[in-house]
């Protein structure tokens, strides 16, 4: 917040300024804790933005990168879009699954290609294909599930769970589940199979709409550096 209140004219000059001094507008980046954190930090390191092991080892939730240009905050995945939408964080790294579920109003300039997985409908392998008047769907993604079945005109009862969704069909709480599938091992262990893939999900760079304009130079540099690191630099400025 404090960073945002500085004179934004500094943004226009930060291009030349940060190489000699790192006082120009630091960017705040929200990272999803957990599964995505390591891969996100790896991509950032490839882009020349590294956080010392010492800083990571500490249990602080806000740390700076080694050159003092970026401040990182570590929050729960579902909270990344919240911080970015409010402009408390300028940028964030979060999975597409979270963005779809929260319907976050943020810019998504870059697919980082990390933590590739899919959101799928899964059911018991022995489930018979008989027609039901109402499908019971257990999920951590009620919006995605409702939108998916709604678009197909299938009436569903959404049962929202906060974890161990695979149990629901096994115990008879639901007919099927909508969940993130990475390797499919957890599904297989519980006797479930993927019936239909709804969409792919990867880690994405998201940017606050105001920061994209007010800190255009700094945000643009970060996007370009990450684009090169990810190796999708096919369309860059000539």
């Amino acid at each position, binding site marked *: 917040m404090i960073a945002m209140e500085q*004179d934004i004219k500094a943004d226009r000059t930060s291009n030349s300024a940060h190489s000699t001094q790192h006082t120009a507008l630091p960017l705040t980046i929200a990272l999803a804790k957990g599964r995505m954190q390591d891969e996100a930090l790896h991509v950032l390191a490839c882009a020349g933005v590294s956080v010392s092991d010492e800083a990571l080892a500490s249990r602080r939730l806000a740390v700076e990168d080694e050159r003092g240009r970026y401040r990182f905050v570590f929050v729960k995945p579902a909270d990344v879009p919240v911080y970015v939408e409010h*402009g408390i964080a300028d940028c964030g790294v979060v999975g597409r699954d979270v963005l779809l579920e929260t319907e976050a109003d943020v810019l998504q300039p870059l697919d980082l290609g990390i933590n590739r997985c899919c959101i799928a409908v899964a059911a018991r392998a022995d489930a018979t294909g008989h027609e039901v008047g109402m499908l019971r769907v257990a999920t951590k993604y009620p919006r995605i599930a409702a939108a998916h079945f709604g678009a197909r005109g299938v009436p569903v009862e959404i049962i929202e769970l906060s974890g161990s969704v695979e149990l629901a069909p096994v115990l008879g709480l639901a007919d099927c589940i909508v969940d993130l599938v990475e390797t499919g091992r957890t599904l297989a262990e519980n006797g479930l199979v993927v019936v239909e893939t709804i969409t792919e999900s990867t880690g994405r760079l998201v940017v606050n709409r105001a920061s994209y*304009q007010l800190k255009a130079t700094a945000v643009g540099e970060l996007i370009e550096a990450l684009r090169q690191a990810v190796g999708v630099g096919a369309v860059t400025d000539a």
Partner: protein
Amino acid sequence: MPDGVRYYFGAEARLRRAVEDVAMSVFAGWSYEEIATPALDYFALFDRGMGHGEAQRAFRFTDTDGRLLALRPDVTSSVARASATLFANRPRPLRLCYAASVFRQRPRSHAEWRREWTQLGCELIGAAGAAADLETLLITIEVLEQLGLAGRFRITLNHVEIFNGLAAQLALDATAREELRRIIDTRDTDALNRFLAAHTQSAQTNAARHPLTRFTGQSDIIAAARQQLTDARSTSALDALAEVWRVLEALQLSDCFEIDLGDVSGLDYYTGLVYKIYVAGAGTRVGSGGRYDELTANFGGREPAVGFVLDLDALTDVLARSHSTLALNGQTQPTIIDDDDIATRFRAARLSRTNGERIELK
């Protein structure tokens, strides 16, 4: 209390009042005449004025005769109707301004949580061209400067015909057009490349990727876009943007601006220049504006028009957080009036008030 509404009191209410006064005095300084519109009107007015999608967010209920009413979700629709009817015979251009609350159901954004907020707006009706567009931009800048926000705001400029030209050239149906709009709106470069690859045949249009995927910049982005967007609609839109930019540079104001080809909101409503206003310290935009030449046609006569709104509540938030001294100017200590005899007390009160003093009765 329901979601999305709130009280204002104390220092915050004083600041909010001061912001409104600054804006209205700037508007008056540019000869914009205040207009107050009904807070309650037929839903059909907003459905025509804002377009079906946006009007859906209005709070609706039925009149005693069964007709559908709405709490106004915007002021522009009503102003457009007034200019086509009440002011049909007035000489043009019309310069109208307002400070009015608007009501909308919760939008997509979670950061924009308000369902009631106040718009400070100007409408310049019956004037076409870059000069009219620039007039509204300069008024916007003056308000922000007078609020003490100089150097802390940025206004993005775009022209809707750049997107419309591209969509027409690609011969997109409504679904594909909306898909392209959504991709550009979220600046999703990878998805845009995939989309253009799927929808273009010739190498010539293929090259159109470049300026749109870069999205923002200053005059350089107009030059880059010219290289690639060669259809007539996009070209004349780029000419219009370049003309506005040339004047802003001549006025040494271009540092406050950014060209943002990725601003593709309100395409069904705007017909020319569009702009969005951002202030450091606010995570969402604090205002927007643009040209809407087709709007008044809904109410009788088609005429060129351009206007903008600033969000009073968002501006108050930013200023309150940065400890603005705006509301402190002219604040005096009250004269305390105390006398056991009621008549004496009020005689003293009336005398002090005649002298223009602030009083507080014991």
